[in-house]
């Protein structure tokens, strides 16, 4: 993608009077880090980038902003938020529209067709991070990693993030402004991660998840980063009634993870952020993707494609599968 064009467009949007700020990606403070950038004016747009490191789904910020109590007589700032989205991110926007989490007229969606992101952990493992911010760029058949002035070409397969291998919608499904031409879509890979767990027997699965969930520190980053976890008052924080105790142990952690994954059934748009942010490296994506797969295969439903769709959890079909019913 043409970075100049991106910054130019972003500058125009950020400068608009009806836009509060534009959320895009900017270079991070070191290594491969990319940070969300909140651009309030045209000048700020110069910081923006779009590269294979821009894994973060910025749609979460649409609902993360606190609505602080307004002093009497003060009007809320109802200017729009402009948001840069990849294909997966745009599905979050579409799903938020389905769920009325945002108003269409309150967002300016800038679509970025996405050739696929690198897996940041894999990248750092193979090409250790440097103190100076490094860069990764797309080439026709892969990536170039640029660290400390040194360029290394890497094949797409070597570094492509799992969520991107599985991606069905690299092009934004919803946008006001589209940057560049749509990318050619690719055949989504078989979800080996989910298959692998599915193929275990029930005891092995239990053991597998016990190990994973025992590592959970309940930092709630998975929930907080999720663009679709946007309840102001999450039931998992609540004490009356208590769904999940505050104490951190395998039992409560499992309950937390079940509830989190279940609440996303038919809603998760598979951006993979939960898994990316987890400091305990719990393969949360597998939980979500398993459910997404069931929803797709058994119920013929994919969330986050049509802002007018009926929400999966609030609808049914008379012929929904019921082979599990006695």
């Amino acid at each position, binding site marked *: 993608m043409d970075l100049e064009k991106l910054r130019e467009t972003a500058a125009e949007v950020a400068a608009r009077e009806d836009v509060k700020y534009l959320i895009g990606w900017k270079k991070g403070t070191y290594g491969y880090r990319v940070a969300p950038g909140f651009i309030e004016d045209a000048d700020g747009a110069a910081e923006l980038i779009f590269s294979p490191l821009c894994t973060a789904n910025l749609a979460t910020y649409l609902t993360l902003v606190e609505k602080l109590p307004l002093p009497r007589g003060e009007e809320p700032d109802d200017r729009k938020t402009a948001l840069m989205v990849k294909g997966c991110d745009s599905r979050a926007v579409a799903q938020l529209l389905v769920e009325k989490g945002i108003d269409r007229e309150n967002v300016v969606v800038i679509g970025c067709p996405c050739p696929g992101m690198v897996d940041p952990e894999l990248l750092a493992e193979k090409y250790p991070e440097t103190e100076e911010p490094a860069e990764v760029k797309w080439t026709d058949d892969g990536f170039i990693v640029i660290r400390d002035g040194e360029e290394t070409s890497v094949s797409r397969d070597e570094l492509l993030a799992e969520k991107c291998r599985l991606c069905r919608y690299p092009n934004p499904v919803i946008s006001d402004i589209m940057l560049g031409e749509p990318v050619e879509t690719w055949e989504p890979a078989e979800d080996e991660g989910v298959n692998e767990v599915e193929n275990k027997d029930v005891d092995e*699965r239990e053991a597998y998840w016990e190990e994973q969930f025992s590592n959970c520190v309940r930092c709630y980053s998975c929930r907080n980063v999720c663009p679709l976890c946007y309840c102001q008052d999450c039931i998992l924080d609540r004490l009356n009634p208590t*769904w999940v105790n505050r104490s951190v142990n395998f*039992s409560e952690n*499992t309950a937390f993870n*079940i509830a989190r994954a279940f609440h996303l059934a038919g809603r998760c748009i598979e951006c993979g952020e939960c898994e990316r942010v987890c400091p305990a490296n719990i393969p949360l994506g597998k939980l979500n993707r398993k459910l997404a797969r069931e929803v797709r295969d058994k119920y013929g439903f994919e969330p986050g494609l049509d802002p007018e769709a009926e929400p999966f959890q609030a609808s049914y079909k008379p012929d929904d599968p019921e082979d599990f019913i006695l």
Partner: protein
Amino acid sequence: MSANNYEPNIVAFLCNWCSYAGADLAGTSRVQYPSNVQVIRVMCTGRVNPLYVMNALQQGADGVLVSGCHPGDCHYMEGNYYARRRLGMLKDLMEFIGVDPRRFHMSWVSASEGHKWKEVVEKTVEDAREAGPFEGFRRRRIDW
């Protein structure tokens, strides 16, 4: 508890209009069935938050049963359809994280199916018995 005298503890959520009435009918008909199933009455299976199933297992149940009206017979017209979808998803998730599928059942039992209720109870208890005491993510007393 040793495996041979293990009696599964099963929590069941029954809709008021069909399955609860069906279970009542089983009583009126003096149909005999195992006593392991404890019923929580709800107005409709649509009320059953799927997380109840998780919660019941966490709080000490060895198995969970949700039973409601046959499709099309819901007193509230659609509640059982919603329940079917939600609980179907939950079942998939639970199995995926390693909960024995024999621990969770759902059934359609109408107000006139006292015998079916008995069969459902027997199946549920038998399955939970085979699956053994639920240890998994059950809450337990934590060491200091």
